[in-house]
């Protein structure tokens, strides 16, 4: 069964304190792995799509990497405005086009 596990559930960082969020997945063939950011009361906002192991993508202070078993979202020198819930999802190549989501990591960056 396709499954996504995110860790930690919650993370508090000081401004400028770099860290990484983890997304472990089990799928029958990966069609894509997706990172979203969600602010309170809002919908998920697309960040990155990763397709194959070894792939990396960057956007401002965020960098996403992918292996055959997990993905990391690295946050370099975070700012308070990076505070949000970060969601990971996968789409299995063996099934339909539905996403399987993790429960997310709630990030709080303190000034």
């Amino acid at each position, binding site marked *: 069964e396709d499954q996504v596990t995110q860790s930690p559930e919650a993370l508090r960082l000081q401004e400028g304190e770099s860290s990484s969020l983890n997304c472990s997945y089990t799928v029958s063939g990966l069609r894509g792995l997706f990172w979203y950011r969600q602010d309170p009361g809002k919908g998920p906002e697309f960040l990155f*799509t990763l397709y194959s192991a070894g792939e990396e993508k960057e956007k401002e202070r965020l960098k996403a990497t992918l292996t055959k078993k997990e993905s990391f979202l690295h946050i370099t020198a975070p700012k308070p405005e990076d505070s949000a819930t970060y969601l990971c999802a996968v*789409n299995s190549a063996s099934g339909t086009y*539905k996403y399987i989501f993790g429960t997310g990591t709630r990030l709080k960056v303190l000034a």
Partner: protein
Amino acid sequence: EAGVTQFPSHSVIEKGQTVTLRCDPISGHDNLYWYRRVMGKEIKFLLHFVKESKQDESGMPNNRFLAERTGGTYSTLKVQPAELEDSGVYFCASSQHLSSGNTIYFGEGSWLTVV
């Protein structure tokens, strides 16, 4: 370019009543999806339209939920009769192509409370 639009943003109804949620996808997106997040749980897939056809409705909880997309444009999701466990946030999303990866874009959600 306008994003995915959902209406209403919030709805409070009594158990047994009916609620209809509406979603307008990004213009030109043939693929439309409904997802749901109930309290404390992860976002879960409900169904997928390709134009006006239901491609996958494996996530629909039961026959109290009815989704339509007449004409392949906007979609509605009706819950009738609503139960307490239907409370949560209903997200609509859309994508242009069913290509490798198939990145989808979400709306702000319709927050449903059944009392």
